[in-house]
């Protein structure tokens, strides 16, 4: 009787475990706390760069490291390239992604000098569609505070941000427009556009 009960309980637990394994993997295995942790440390690094007073080229290098470590660069690059990513070869994608990383680092790294003396504070986390949004506020000298949202997902296999919005202005959409225009200028030649990208930003 006692023995049986234990057996039953064991079966029950085993059955539950098997059932859980059969369930589809939920889209959101990342938690609010996990998303917040990522952005907290990202913002901490950005604040350190803003406060360091280093030269512009040092800030750009610092930002490239931060971007590489905290962002899902391949996904951001692929999205920015749009439909043309489908026809690109693996080598073209690698080369484009690498050029894109440098371009983003230069473009956004330069902006840091206007942030000097300011700071970013993480405020709240909420879920949108299949990802987490970490809302933060930037406080700059002589400016009304403004909102920066970081979109975080673990769908790359790691917790990384894949988009950010500054007062509603979305990095993915803005960069897709820009890369699209650069591609148009080269009549759709990805290699020529990638070469331009290495000098842009």
């Amino acid at each position, binding site marked *: 009787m006692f023995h049986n009960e234990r057996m039953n309980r064991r079966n029950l637990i085993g059955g539950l475990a098997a059932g859980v394994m059969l369930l589809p993997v939920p889209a959101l295995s990342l938690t609010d706390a996990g998303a917040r942790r990522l952005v907290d440390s990202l913002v901490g690094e950005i604040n350190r760069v803003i406060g360091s007073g280093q030269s512009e080229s040092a800030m750009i290098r610092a930002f490239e490291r931060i971007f590489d470590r905290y962002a899902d660069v391949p996904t951001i690059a692929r999205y920015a390239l749009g439909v043309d990513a489908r026809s690109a070869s693996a080598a073209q994608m690698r080369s484009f992604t690498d050029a894109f990383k440098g371009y983003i680092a230069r473009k956004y790294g330069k902006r840091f000098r206007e942030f000097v003396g300011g700071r970013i504070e993480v405020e709240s986390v909420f879920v949108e569609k299949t990802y987490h949004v970490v809302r933060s506020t930037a406080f700059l000298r*002589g400016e009304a505070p403004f909102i920066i949202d970081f979109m975080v997902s673990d769908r790359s296999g790691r917790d990384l941000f*894949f988009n950010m919005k500054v007062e509603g202005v979305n990095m993915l959409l803005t960069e897709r427009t820009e890369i699209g225009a650069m591609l148009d200028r080269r009549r759709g030649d990805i290699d020529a556009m990638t070469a331009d990208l290495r000098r842009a930003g």
Partner: protein
Amino acid sequence: MNNLRILPFFALGFLVACSVPGPGGAPDGMHDPHEASNRQVHEFNQNIDKRFFGGGKERAPAKPNAFRDGVQDNVTNFAGNFATPGYVVNQVMQGDLAGATRNTFRFAVNSTLGFAGLMDIASDIGVGEDETDFGETLHVWGAPEGAYQVLPIIGPSTERDTAGRVVDLFTNPLGYVLDKPEKYSGTVAKLVSRAGKRRQYGATVDSVLHDSADSYAQTRIIYLQNRRFELGQDAPGGGVDPYEELYGSDDVSQ
């Protein structure tokens, strides 16, 4: 009586006649039927920026200058404070009484303790700026955004925002209670403040207006996203999910 007073605004609201995209007329959530003429005005604005603000040239980073930066802050604060009664009028028309109360408090505090608005004391005690305009009022009243527009000197707008700008020439009560030339001090301060910001954020403006591969398309997408965000609307493609688009709905980490 009150109804009679706001009648002219209603009349203008109807005059706006914002164009609405037909089916498939705005594939990216952007309605821009006048793109060709907008591009011409954009080019004109770019040339103005090059000529008067040195836009597009290599520029040294703005050196910190405590005195100049302080004056710039004062001018910006003054312009903002001068505009605040106009915000209150718009917030009342939007039915945003909390916002109207907050801005009335800001105006009272900053006009007195803040030396006629030169200092933003209200922000220091936690009552921050809450800007609005008649374009937002039209939005609250249900007017559609209308087509994207580029205005000479002023820059990007929409049909609804342009109508709002026209009406806002008349919404600030200070324009009625002050004499010349005091009534123009707000406008002058605003222009000086804008010129100062152009210098402060010179490199950022350059990166969009002069360095971009298609500065017209960049300006348009940035303006529309930001404006819709201010109005609490979804920006074009607001909640974009690249994983969904690029890899389908399956979990790619598996």
